C-alpha cells in the first residue's frame, strides 16, 4: 500500500542513445534536383467557377420562376383550340317521383293526390279528471 501512495523513485534515463557527435553530412556530394515548373491553375479555376455559377443560376431560375401557362393546363405544348358544337339533346320530360308528402297544418293536397290519413293512436280508456282541489295540503 505504501508503495502505491509513496514517492516513486525516478527512473534513470536510458543510455542506449548516445548523444550525437559532429560528423560530415552523408549526402553532401549529390547535386540538387531541378524543380519542374507547374502549370498555372487560375484559368481552370476561373472556368470551374463560371460553370458552377451558371449551374446555380439555372437552378435558382427553375425554382423561382412561375410555370408556363401550358404547364398549368397540363400540357407542355400549345394546343389549337377548336369549338365543337354538340347536337342539342332531345327534350325529355323530367319525371319527379314524389311518393309521400306530409302535409303541415293548413296545407291541402294536390287534386289528384291520394290522401292517407295518418292513424292517430287510440287513446287509452283511462279517464283521469282534473278538477278544483278539495282540501289543500
Amino acid at each position, binding site marked *: 500500500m505504501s508503495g502505491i501512495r509513496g514517492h516513486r523513485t525516478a527512473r534513470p534515463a536510458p543510455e542506449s542513445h548516445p548523444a550525437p557527435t559532429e560528423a560530415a553530412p552523408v549526402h553532401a556530394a549529390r547535386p540538387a534536383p531541378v524543380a519542374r515548373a507547374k502549370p498555372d491553375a487560375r484559368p481552370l479555376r476561373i472556368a470551374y467557377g463560371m460553370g458552377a455559377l451558371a449551374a446555380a443560376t439555372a437552378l435558382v431560375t427553375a425554382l423561382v420562376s412561375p410555370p408556363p401557362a401550358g404547364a398549368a393546363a397540363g400540357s407542355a405544348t400549345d394546343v389549337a383550340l377548336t369549338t365543337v358544337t354538340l347536337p342539342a339533346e332531345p327534350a325529355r320530360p323530367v319525371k319527379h317521383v314524389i311518393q309521400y308528402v306530409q302535409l303541415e297544418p293548413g296545407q291541402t293536397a294536390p287534386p289528384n293526390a291520394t290522401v292517407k290519413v295518418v292513424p*292517430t*293512436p*287510440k*287513446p*287509452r*280508456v*283511462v*279517464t*283521469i*279528471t*282534473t*278538477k*278544483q*282541489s*278539495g*282540501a*289543500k*295540503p
Partner: protein
Amino acid sequence: MSLVFADQTVLVPGPSATATVEPAPEPALVSVVTGMMGGTVGVHVRPVDDGVAAAADARRAARSTLRRLGAWADRLTRFTETSDLARLNASAGVRAPVKPTLAAVLDWARQAEGLSGGIVDVALLDARLAAEHPVGGGRSTTATTAAPRLDRTWSMDRGSRVTFIRRPAGLRFDLDGVAKGWLADRALGLLGSFPSAVVDADGDIAIRLGDGESWRFGIADPRSKDADLLELDLVGSDRDGVGAFGLATSGTSVHRWVHGDHATHHLIDPRIGRPARTDIVQATVLAGTAREAEALAKAAVILGSEAALVALSGHDVHGAVLLTERNELLLTPSTTRWLA
C-alpha cells in the same frame, strides 16, 4: 245552465271523483289510488312489457311513489301542527330555518310568483283566513283572524346545509296554489323508468307519455257532479318533442263561503288583499309541468277572463279552458289540438 251559489254555504266535492280507471288494452295499466291531502291521489303507470313481473314492478313503484308523495305532503300541510309548514308559521322570529322539502316548495313559490306576474302569492294565509272567517260576519262559528297584513316581503337564505326564511314577524304561508303541482311533478320524477306514467295529486296532474302513447283526460264540470266540460286526448310525440304535460284546474266554486248576503271564495288577489273579483268560475291550464299549470290556472281565475287570455298568450302553454260565470267556455287556440 245557470250557476247557483247563493244559497249554499260550502260546496264540497264528491268523494273519489278524480279517477275513473277502466280496463285498458295490453299492456294493462297499473293504477294505485288512495285518499290523501283531503282528496284523492292516484299513480298510473304503464309497465315496460306485458309480463307479470313487469306489472308487479310497476305496482311496487306506484305504491312506493304514493308513500313518498304522502311523506312530502305531510311536511307541507298547514292542517297539522307538526308539519314543517306549521312550524314555520308558528315560529316567532323573523329568520327561521326550514327543511329541504319545504325550502324547495318555497323556492318554486318564488318562481311561480314571477311566472304569474305576482298574482300567485303564498304569503296570503291571513287574508285567506279572513275571507273564510270574517270578523263579526256571516254564519261562521270559527274564531276570527287578523286583517291581512300589507308587508309580505320574504326571502330565502340558502346555506350549504340549512335554508333560512326571512320574513316580517308573524307572516304566515299558505302553499295553496303551488304545492300539489310541485308534488305531482316530484312524484312523477320517481317513475322515470316507465314508458308512460301519470301522477294525479287531487286534480293537479303530472303526465309523461311515451312516443305515440295517448291517454284521455277529463276536465270536471263544476256545475254538474260526475260530468266533464271537455275531454282531452294527450299524445306523446318524439317528433314534436312533446311528451311531458301538466294539467291543473283552479276555481271559485269549491272553496266558497256565504257570509250574510254575499259569497266569497279562497282565491285571494294580492293586489287588493281580498278574494278576487273575477268572472271566471273555473280555469284549466295544460302546460309542460303540473306546477306551472297549477300556478297559471290560479292566476287566470284571479285575473278574470279578459286579462287571463292575454296573460296565457304570453306563456308557452299547450292549452287552456276557462269557464265564465256567463256560462261561456273560452279555449285558447292551441287547446283544439287535444280535444277528444
